[in-house]
């Protein structure tokens, strides 16, 4: 299934602004991050800590709705979903 990934700020600089990933049906956020991390060490370091856990400060949106820490492991993505990843905000 096709998933659009958008990344912002430092995440954009490392993983790219926007891209279409082709993931197996039933994939969730960890699978998506794994696909991004497999490209190079810099991406892996940005997304996962030394224990292989998703880094604490990453913020996730699926179709422009925030996904909290507790739902990160359980949410299932669907064809056409837009997943955004970004660091803490600093506007205003």
């Amino acid at each position, binding site marked *: 299934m096709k998933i659009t990934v958008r990344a912002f700020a430092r995440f954009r600089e490392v993983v790219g602004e926007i891209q279409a990933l082709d993931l197996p049906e039933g994939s969730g956020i960890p699978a998506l991050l794994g696909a991004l991390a497999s490209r190079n060490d810099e991406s892996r370091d940005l997304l996962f800590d030394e224990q292989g856990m998703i880094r604490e400060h990453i913020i996730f*949106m699926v179709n*422009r709705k925030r996904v909290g820490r507790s739902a990160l492991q359980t949410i299932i993505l669907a064809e056409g979903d837009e997943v955004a990843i970004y660091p803490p*905000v*600093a506007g205003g």
Partner: protein
Amino acid sequence: MITITDEDFDPGACIDAARDPRVGGIVTFTGIVRDDGITSIELETYREAALQELGVIRDEALSRYDIRSVDIIHRVGPLAIGDHIVVITVGAPHRRDAFDACEYIIDRIKETVPIWKKEHTAEGSRWVPGEHS
């Protein structure tokens, strides 16, 4: 009105738009680029999500405080020292609600609206950590 724009804007026009027979006080917050040893900054946004989030914050303010209007303009793109970053304008029958709502809105913007700031200095560039990171 809620706007995210690459162009400069006029805070005075926002105050003018908030004038209304039911309004006695208008409080405006204008954020500008301060010189912290920087040469310029760059603001990046997830525009669709930021517009949505600004709308949520406006609606929260309208339901929590006795106010008549909320207008927010946020600039993005490259900015120089002294440039406008954001203007928030709140019109209310009484001043206390206008102050409280305006401060509430800027605090919430800094917590949740997907906008990021990169500072450029003579030594290099860095992303500004959020107040709530």
